[in-house]
């Protein structure tokens, strides 16, 4: 997995972050499939089409609301849930297992799209053993510096 997140890896990155994600697709602004966790292209295309239509229906349902257009949607259905998040350039949709924590999945969707839009990369936590085994670098040393205290 490259350090900089590319659209081609965004769906897979989401699944790495969320164990409860069963499958995910990334669509571009035109609604075309960009990446998917599913290797079966036909099924991924179908899922992407459904995700695009999902946001179309959400926009239709909320058209008269005096609020900004929804950025994220959560649909709980028997047996699981569907989550989707969008930016002006991308739409990331995921099918999650039953019982998945909504707040976590929504956060991960937001984080992956944020990284795709040039935000800071998602930092994975690592165990003490992994950290000890890794070579010492200035970057690592900076991470271990104490946080500055706030206030006077």
């Amino acid at each position, binding site marked *: 997995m490259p350090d900089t997140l590319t659209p081609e890896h965004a769906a897979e990155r989401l699944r790495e972050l969320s164990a409860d994600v*069963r499958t995910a697709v990334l669509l571009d602004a035109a609604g075309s499939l960009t990446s998917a966790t599913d290797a079966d292209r036909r*099924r991924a295309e179908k899922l992407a089409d459904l995700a695009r239509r*999902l946001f179309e*229906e959400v926009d239709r*349902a909320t058209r008269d609301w005096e609020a*900004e257009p*929804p950025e994220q949607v959560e649909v*709980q*259905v028997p047996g699981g849930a569907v989550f989707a998040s969008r930016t002006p350039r991308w739409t990331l949709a995921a099918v999650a297992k039953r019982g998945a924590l909504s707040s976590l999945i929504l956060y991960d969707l937001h984080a992956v799209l944020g990284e795709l839009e040039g935000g800071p990369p998602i930092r994975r936590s690592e165990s003490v053993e992994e950290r000890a085994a890794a070579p010492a670098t200035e970057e690592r040393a900076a991470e271990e510096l104490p946080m500055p205290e706030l206030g006077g």
Partner: protein
Amino acid sequence: MKEKRKGPLSRAAGIAEGVAATVRRLQREREPRVLVYDPSGYARLVQPEARGHDRIMSLAEEMLSEAAGRE
């Protein structure tokens, strides 16, 4: 102020109440529903009688079926 429970039976009842409340909350969270979030994270429920609600539910169910077919 919440009254402090005394005695083992009372404490056990308190734990059971807590577990029951958690189960109720989890069940509520898994009830079929459509929630939308604005950019600030504020959630709003799309009411079941609202225009498009049934269509959204059916699209989500279709997505779930597609995912199930993959597994």
